[in-house]
């Protein structure tokens, strides 16, 4: 089952209000995604902590098997 990229974006935006989020399908199979996220909440966090926030936002889609891999690129605005 392919992920709904728009839904994934909305999940991240909901978890990180004010964030700018772009999710793309990296492999064309709909389960290996790449998220580019710029969020004010990342300020002063280590990269791993920033990634944790993004992954936590979409954990439901990992748990139900929709997503197998999510590459994350984070930046502070």
């Amino acid at each position, binding site marked *: 089952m392919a992920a709904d990229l728009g839904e994934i974006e909305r999940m991240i935006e909901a978890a990180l209000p004010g964030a700018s989020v772009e999710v793309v399908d990296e492999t064309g199979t709909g389960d290996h995604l790449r998220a580019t996220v710029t969020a004010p909440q990342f300020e002063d966090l280590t*990269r*791993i902590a920033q*990634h*944790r926030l993004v992954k936590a936002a979409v954990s439901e889609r990992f748990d139900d098997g929709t997503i197998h*891999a999510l*590459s*994350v*690129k984070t930046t502070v605005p």
Partner: protein
Amino acid sequence: MADAELKQKVEELIAANPVLLFMKGTPEAPRCGFSMRVVQVLDSIDVEYGAIDVLPALQPLREVTSEISDWQTFPQLYVNGELLGGADIVEEMFDSGELAEALGVEQPEAAPAAASSAPAANATPAQSPPLQIE
């Protein structure tokens, strides 16, 4: 709930190895592209690191790292007892020079892609600490 004995063993290994990579496969024979990318970065930097193959106990180790670092996917690179990140973060920090800084080494001049085309020549032999998993 992670296995307490395994968790303690993992915590001891993280404490005993300033640079420790949990990966799928071994540095010589990575069994996952993400693990291979981290090995290539580490090999292009002159740093000694320990490597642990998670495949023999993937699920138990996921539970352990989940509790220790709130992170379930491998590879995972630990530096001075803290989880630095997986392949994305390690590569990003390598490119920006932050990784060399975190490891206390000089940033190599060659990019990892260039370094990876000639791997064996001066690669630092990785030490794999013994991790017995029943």
